[in-house]
Structures are given as C-alpha cells and as structure tokens.
C-alpha cells in the first residue's frame, strides 16, 4: 500500500475536480453541467477516503463522510434532474443560457 504515496491520490483527485469544474463552467446543457458537478463530488470522495486511509487508518470517519456525500449527491441529482425536466417541459430547452429569467 505504501508503494503509492498519498500525493498520487491527491493529484488524481485534483485533476478530476478541475475536469469537473471545467465541465460545469463551460457546458451549455444543464444535464452536462450536472455531470460535471458529480465529477467534482467524486473527486472530493477520493480525497476523503485517501486521507482516511493514510492519516487516520484506524477509524473510518472519512468513509462515513464519503457515504454521506454519495447520498447527498444522489438526492441532488434527483431534484436537479426533476428541475431540468420541468424546465424542458415548460420552456422546451435545457440550455442554461436560455433559462435566464426567474419567472416562467
């Protein structure tokens, strides 16, 4: 296990976080933005579990947090996609640039 230093995990998580951020910032489609957000949450999970394994291997607090993050990501995705579907049905678009008025 100690063959792989902690920084490797952190670098991968950082790269994934940046990719997710780029996706969330640059995409037009709301579903694609949501996918970017999911990537970012996953990058955070890698960090949590890696820290848990390397710094406090005796307890599992990091994993407990990761489970909570995953659960919240699921709830977030459910509601976000419902909003996207509602917006699509009302406005006929899922392009966030066109969804800029507060009132339908």
């Amino acid at each position: 296990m100690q063959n792989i230093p902690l920084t490797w995990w952190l670098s991968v998580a950082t790269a994934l976080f940046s990719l997710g951020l780029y996706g969330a910032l640059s995409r037009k489609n709301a579903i694609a933005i949501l996918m970017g957000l999911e990537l970012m949450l996953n990058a955070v999970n890698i960090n949590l579990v890696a820290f848990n394994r390397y710094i406090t291997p005796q307890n599992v607090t990091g994993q407990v947090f990761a489970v909570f993050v995953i659960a919240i990501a699921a709830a977030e995705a459910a509601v976000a996609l419902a909003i996207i579907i509602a917006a699509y049905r009302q406005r006929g678009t899922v392009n966030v640039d066109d969804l800029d008025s507060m009132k339908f």
Partner: protein
Amino acid sequence: MQNEFIFVGILTICAILLPVGGMGMSWMLRPHKPNKLKQTTYECGLETVGETWAQFKVSYYIYALIFVVFDVEAVFLFPWAVAYNKLPLYALAEVLIFVLILLFALVYAWRKGALEWI
C-alpha cells in the same frame, strides 16, 4: 490493497474475456455479407416511420427517482445490519425512525399517484 478483492479483479478479467473471446471467435467463423436490407431497423418487415427518439412519458423517470431514494436508504441500512448485534436497543429505535420516514415517502408517492402506470 485488500487481499480478498484480488480474486474479484481476476474474475472480472476472466469474465470480460468471455464476451471478447466469444465475439472474436464468432467474428472469425461467421460470414460477413452485410447489405442494406439486412441492416434496416427490425420492425417485423414494416418500414420505420418517424425518428427513433420518441418522446417518453415522465412515469419512467418517477420510478427511477423513487428507486434512487430507496437505494440510498438500503445503502445506509447495510452497515447497520452488520453492526446490529453489537449495538444496544437504541439502534432499533433509531432505525425505526429512519425507516418510518422513508415509508412515509413511499406512502406519499403512492397517494400522489406517482406509482400509477397510466
């Protein structure tokens, strides 16, 4: 790395070899004579009308949605089930609350008619 998962990795590789090997072998043995008629969409001999991406009703999404909620619930209950023997009685009470809240979610979906396939 955890030892007991090594076999899962080995089995995954073997299992991937099964379709790869099967399709590869069939690719070598089978005839390749595609023509336009063969490659049309199969609709019992009728011509395809309209585009494939038909509009779907939202009930499919709602079923998937309720599934996600209960899936996450199950995820939380598995560690509880394993630790259950080592926990005092309050473990039961807490999970009772947890499950009852989600049963309320099921009842809500039921009453709202979200579980009706129209």
